[in-house]
């Protein structure tokens, strides 16, 4: 049978999207944000502030307090006091009602939060509006319901809260990561000191306002902004009973080492280098969409991004051709535009890191292919990029780039692809595309990763546990399993 010709797509026509910017006039932002400690916004003891910017324009949005060790100490003591005097004594069903209130307030203010998330982090408004913010609200809603049902989740174990949880979150999903951390901690009866990432503090500070509005007792949630040393002060504070960290594997290792020998409980959600595996019997068009979503969702700033593509040899030409065509249709630019697929890279530092990896990829001998799209002159942008003819030993196939860069390899047998997919220190997630159900379940049982998506990718739900194997960290967030890291038995 003759092989079916795939038609070439033509991009030289005049078809353009009209600009469709999301309105920003309805949001409320202050010029300066203080630390949220014990239910109030307080100035940092050092009086130091830093600028937070819009990565799409490089313009300053607001001044943010830089918390030092002393501020963290005040916050931890406030959390400890709230734990001892109020939160640990409150009936669980009343605790639940506060968390439900927070969920509702996020829902009510969803559009404002979406716009701020996009302004401060650079992600496409479509994603902050349809993914980040609704999921954050849902996460609070889901865990609110658990507060008075813990004895059902862990029968015969009489689960007890830990005390003060110190939580440090990354810049890729600012509000969503805050929800992943705060919701289960509160539901299980702990109090919180949370540090948002230095580049994306704004939605967390809006969350602080929401928490104030909800009437949550003072000190139950404290939000301290700052840089690495602020996080280190939380990790090392003797009154902190639990550390939950999402971020890079290097920092995760440092935290694990720092708390060695203490009684602090630890959850780490670290880096990843997911294999997205396309078998020859896969629905190819859907798989191509899945590959695109897997690596270009949120500019590739996703720990579970499908950054390694494995295509079975027999369909490699077709998949790569379609992938190149699809790459060409991606709209890169103003994150506030509702048509934008790929927004701004979160920071100058991250942009430099990605560009460095592009050089490394080329120097290692891989073939780089980029979209021909133009990118804005101002702000931090990078073209979506494919690397062809990569091998398992290339650094771009081994290291987490955390950007819109896909390393493509081919394979022949199931055995080979399992071997290649697993031969990496990470184990956060993986994707499998095939029409054959029995193969899916073979792959899900053989892949050493905490989440495996079959014929889909980058799906998240508050009921579904998320977390890694190996150097991608330990502990799970989401679902019934997400309660465990915040309880003792």
């Amino acid at each position: 049978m003759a092989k079916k010709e795939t038609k070439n797509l033509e991009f030289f026509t005049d078809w353009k999207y009209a600009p469709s910017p999301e309105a920003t006039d309805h949001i409320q932002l202050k010029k300066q944000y203080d630390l949220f400690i014990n239910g109030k916004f307080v100035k940092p003891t050092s009086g130091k502030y830093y600028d937070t910017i819009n990565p799409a324009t490089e313009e300053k949005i607001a001044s943010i307090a830089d918390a030092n060790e002393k501020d963290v100490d005040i916050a931890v003591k406030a959390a400890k006091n709230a734990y001892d005097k109020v939160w640990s004594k409150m009936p669980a069903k009343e605790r639940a009602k506060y968390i439900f209130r927070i969920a509702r307030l996020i829902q009510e203010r969803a559009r404002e939060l979406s716009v701020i998330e996009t302004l401060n982090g650079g992600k496409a408004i479509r994603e902050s509006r349809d993914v980040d913010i609704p999921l954050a609200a849902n996460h609070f809603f889901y865990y609110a319901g658990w507060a008075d049902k813990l004895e059902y989740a862990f029968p015969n174990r009489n689960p007890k809260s830990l005390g003060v949880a110190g939580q440090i979150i990354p810049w890729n999903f600012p509000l969503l990561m805050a929800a992943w951390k705060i919701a289960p901690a509160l539901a299980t009866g702990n109090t919180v000191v949370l540090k948002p990432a230095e580049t994306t503090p704004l939605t967390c500070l809006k969350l602080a306002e929401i928490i104030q509005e909800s009437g949550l007792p003072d000190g139950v949630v404290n939000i301290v902004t700052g840089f690495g040393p602020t996080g280190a002060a939380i990790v090392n504070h003797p009154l902190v009973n639990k550390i939950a960290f999402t971020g890079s594997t290097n920092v995760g290792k440092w935290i694990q080492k720092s708390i060695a020998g203490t009684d602090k409980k630890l959850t780490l959600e670290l880096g990843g280098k997911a294999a997205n595996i396309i078998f020859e019997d896969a629905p190819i068009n859907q798989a191509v969409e899945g590959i695109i979503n897997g690596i270009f969702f949120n500019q590739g700033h996703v720990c579970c991004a499908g950054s390694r593509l494995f295509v079975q040899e027999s369909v490699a030409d077709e998949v790569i051709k379609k992938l190149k065509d699809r790459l060409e249709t991606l709209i890169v630019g103003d994150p506030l535009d509702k048509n934008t697929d790929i927004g701004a890279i979160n920071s100058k530092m991250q942009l430099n890191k990605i560009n460095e990896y592009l050089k490394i990829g080329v120097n290692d001998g891989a073939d780089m292919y980029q979209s021909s799209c133009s990118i804005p002159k101002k702000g931090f942008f990078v073209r979506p990029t494919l690397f062809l003819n990569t091998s398992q030993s290339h650094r771009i196939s081994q290291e987490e780039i955390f950007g819109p860069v896909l390393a493509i390899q081919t394979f022949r047998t199931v055995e080979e692809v399992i071997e290649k997919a697993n031969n990496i220190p990470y184990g956060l997630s993986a994707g499998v595309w095939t029409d054959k159900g029995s193969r899916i379940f073979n792959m899900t049982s053989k892949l050493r990763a905490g989440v495996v998506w079959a014929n889909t990718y980058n799906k998240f739900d508050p009921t579904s546990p998320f977390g890694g194997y190996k150097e991608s960290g330990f502990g799970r967030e989401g679902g019934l399993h997400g309660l465990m890291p915040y309880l003792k038995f």
Partner: protein
Amino acid sequence: MQTLRLNIMERIEVLKTYKIFIGGQFPRTESGRYYPLKLKNNMTVNVSLSSRKDFRNSVTAARSAFSGWSARAAFNRGQILYRIAEMLEGRKEQFLEELKQLGYTAVNAKKEIEQSIDRLVYYAGWCDKYQQMHSAVNPVATSHFNFSVPEPMGVVAIMADESTALLGLISVVAPCIAGGNTCIVLASENKPTCAITFAEVLATSDVPGGVVNILTGNRKELHSHFSSHMDVNAIINCNSEKDFNKTIGENASLNVKRVYTWNKNWSDEKEQGPYFITDLQEIKTTWHPIENIGISGIKY
């Protein structure tokens, strides 16, 4: 003279006709019958005395609502149950007054309404959680992926607790619909007004029409119809009526209905939990083959 003039000037209260609730609509009973209920303020309410036909219409409504309701995301059902709680909280004063007219003391009325709201919030939380506790991946010895999950039974006929106006009814309806079932509830015969006002709450809480249908009437007349209908999957009587329950049990065998007698003290917080949900669930087990290639790949 003076008193008479005042009475003439007084605003006359508009009284409500209490109806029944079928398929999201508020009809009176098709039979045209009623029974009088005297309230504490000496007013009389003419309560609908629902007929077999009203019940049969309700089952039709419940059955047609079932496919949509059971297919809702569990999360969405949780949101809707929470919305019912929000609406009920907003109408607290109205219920307090109605409960008092039914003979509740102020203290008991407050307790009844507050527990009712809290119970709805409690079951709102269960909507997307009971599955996680009552499902299993079964480690069968062959190379199969084998899992069991709960699924809603279908249409449930409920004869609510006679002794409470609201809490008993909500304590059974909430776990029933939390699990994706639809239901027909017969309200307390002597305290029926709050149940109908609760129907007004349901009608404004994004609960699709037909998911909950509420009738008022006489258990003695209706229990045999409730239990003999061939399109009802489960029946719950919340009252310990030995002779009724014998008839119910016998009739239920006509189409193998699941039968429960939940004669509980609903004001006890122990009388809530996931088992009220799972009693109204079936368990479905799915087998799927797993190919077995690539053992060496898991050495990492």
